[in-house]
């Protein structure tokens, strides 16, 4: 059962119905016992009254009791019956209601009345009390006659009454209780339905609020005031979730805006260069130069779009990395190749200290991208006549690579931002338009994806990037 409402309703109403039913059964049992007991007591009372009138006179017993005087014995439909037996089950006396018929014989216990459910002479069900007792001769009578006291005579007295009225009463009681149970059940259903509906109303309200949250109103929060205590944690968690979502959406929007912004400037460069070139007839070398300029910008844009795409794929987990053992020295040399001439021309001193046998585990293409970015940064930001150091060492289960360059003008505060997408230091802006602030962001995402770490530091104009990569498994 998936509905909370149905579950609550079934359990509440079922539980209450069971309770009422048990209560009814108990009441019925108690009442039945009590009615039976009073029925028996009344029957025994009649028997004792009759028993008290039994006399012995010269060995002969007789009850001085005339049932015709008692209305109960004359009842036209359900008369009471009695029969008195002397010794040897000799019938001494019987009520008029019996006619010539006998009551069933039951052996009586001395002293204690015995109750039996019997079939009455008219074929109806009834209950009979049997009393067995001794009747002594009257001593005064004895004395008068001057005879010896005769031995006491044991007699058996039975009084019976039809049980139909009692059963009718019990049946009525049973019906009363059953209908009361059913009524209580229905009432419980109604009350439970109302209570459950009211109790679950805040859930509906919460669903409504959550349903109203769209991409453009993520700043809304679920009000916790007046929310039921049990639901407050849910509301709080939802608000936390909204906060995180809002932050992610804000970042994504900022990223899109930044990307558009960063693409607009080179686009404006290409468009203006072309429009100016086309504004009049020119000499071939002027066209050539304009085309060359456009080509340079296009290359920069291509590199930026490549980085953007690589970054987006890394962040979206869409890059299928293929970790393999990579000789670091070899790859560094390959990535350094295109930069070497420019660095040399600017009289920058370079020191490479990468052991040739150093092997790390990484995705080759992405590691190449990481190294190209880091080396290009170092090459472009080092001051003329400055110094670049590239050092790698093997730690126990990792390979540490440190690339540092002089001429850094970033402050400690600024360094904290270098991994943010599109963040650029002031000096980077002044550069040739090659750097758009994606390189280090890409480096960080890629190295993290390899299972490594990267951090940067700046001290006294020396900018250092430290990369830690997992070593190749032996």
């Amino acid at each position, binding site marked *: 059962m998936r509905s909370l409402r149905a579950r609550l309703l079934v359990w509440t109403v079922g539980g209450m119905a069971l309770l009422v039913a048990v209560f009814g059964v108990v009441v019925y049992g108690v009442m039945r016992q009590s009615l039976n007991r009073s029925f028996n007591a009344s029957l025994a009372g009649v028997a004792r009254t009759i028993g008290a009138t039994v006399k012995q006179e010269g060995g002969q017993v007789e009850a001085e009791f005339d049932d015709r005087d008692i209305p109960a014995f004359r009842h036209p439909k359900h008369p009471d019956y009695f029969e008195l037996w002397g010794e040897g089950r000799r019938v001494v006396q019987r009520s008029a209601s019996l006619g010539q018929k006998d009551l069933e014989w039951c052996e009586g216990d001395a002293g204690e009345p015995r109750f039996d459910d019997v079939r009455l002479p008219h074929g109806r069900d009834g209950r009979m009390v049997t009393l067995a007792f001794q009747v002594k001769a009257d001593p005064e009578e004895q004395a008068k006659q001057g005879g010896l006291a005769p031995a006491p005579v044991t007699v058996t007295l039975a009084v019976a009454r039809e049980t139909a009225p009692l059963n009718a009463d019990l049946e009525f009681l049973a019906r009363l209780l059953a209908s009361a149970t059913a009524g209580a059940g229905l009432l419980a259903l109604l009350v439970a339905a109302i209570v459950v509906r009211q109790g679950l109303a805040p859930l509906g309200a919460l669903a409504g609020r959550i349903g109203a949250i769209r991409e453009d109103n993520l700043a809304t929060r679920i009000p916790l005031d007046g929310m039921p205590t049990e639901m407050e944690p849910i509301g709080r968690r939802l608000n936390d979730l909204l906060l995180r979502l809002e932050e992610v959406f804000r970042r994504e929007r900022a990223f899109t805006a930044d990307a558009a912004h960063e693409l607009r*400037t080179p686009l404006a460069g290409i468009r203006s260069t072309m429009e100016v070139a086309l504004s009049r007839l020119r000499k071939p070398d002027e066209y050539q130069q304009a085309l060359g300029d456009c080509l340079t910008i296009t290359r920069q844009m291509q590199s930026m779009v490549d980085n953007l795409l690589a970054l987006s794929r890394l962040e979206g987990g869409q890059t299928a990395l293929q970790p393999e053992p990579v000789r670091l020295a070899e790859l560094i040399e390959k990535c350094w190749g295109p930069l070497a001439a420019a660095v040399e021309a600017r009289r920058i001193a370079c020191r490479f200290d990468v052991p040739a046998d150093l092997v790390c585990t990484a995705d080759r293409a992405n590691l190449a991208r990481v190294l190209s970015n880091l080396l290009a940064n170092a090459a472009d930001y080092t001051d003329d006549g400055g110094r670049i150091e590239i050092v790698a060492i093997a730690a126990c289960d990792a390979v540490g690579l440190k690339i540092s360059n002089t001429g850094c003008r970033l402050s400690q505060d600024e360094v904290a931002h270098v991994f943010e997408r599109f963040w650029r230091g002031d000096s980077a802006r002044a550069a040739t338009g090659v750097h758009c602030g994606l390189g280090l962001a890409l480096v960080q995402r890629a190295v993290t994806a390899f299972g490594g770490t990267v951090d940067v530091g700046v001290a006294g104009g020396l900018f250092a990037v430290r990369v830690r990569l997992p070593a190749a498994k032996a």
Partner: protein
Amino acid sequence: MRVLVIEDYPPLQKAVAKGLREAGYAVDVTGDGEEGLWYATSNEYDVVVLDLMLPKMDGMTILKRLRAAGRPCHVLILTAKDTLADRVHGLDAGADDYLVKPFAFEELLARVRALARRAYCIKNPRLEVGDLRIETPTQRVWRGKEEARLTPREYVLLEYLAMRAGQVVSRTDIWEHVYEFNSEADSNVVDVYIGYLRKKLERPGRPPLIRTVRGRGYALGEGP
């Protein structure tokens, strides 16, 4: 007309400067915020084309400093920031116009022309002095019914004089507003170009169009 371009993206800086120069403007260029502010405060520019994201000092700061210093130059913000808030913010900070990258170069030229006109309180793009008629958008010049063929440099000098028609314009003014810094070492260039203009525009038997006011400069049309 002298224009300052403050733009840090080298290819765009180059293209804008080239395009404006070819349209006859005297153009100074810098890619650095602090240098841009120094240029703008130490020279008389008719129009400043200003990027917002610049190294050392951002465009908004430059704009605010310029306005605080009371510089009357007309500022056109040229930026990739395109949101409504950015535009409003830029214009409210004292910019006269706002153009979003990438842009059509023609539009940039038209906007710079409009701002340059405004610098001399002129609304009509067609300037008329006597029977001299100048159409600034197309840079065509007529004397009476006859069109005069002018080189770009001759044209901008004439346009500057026409914008200040009736006033005496000193050589220094011409030097500062029409010709580029350091491009010509010889200050006689003004007189040379005045000579070219006279040759192409003066008609025998008519009162001179460009008068020389001895010791003060030149004046176009009727005036003091």
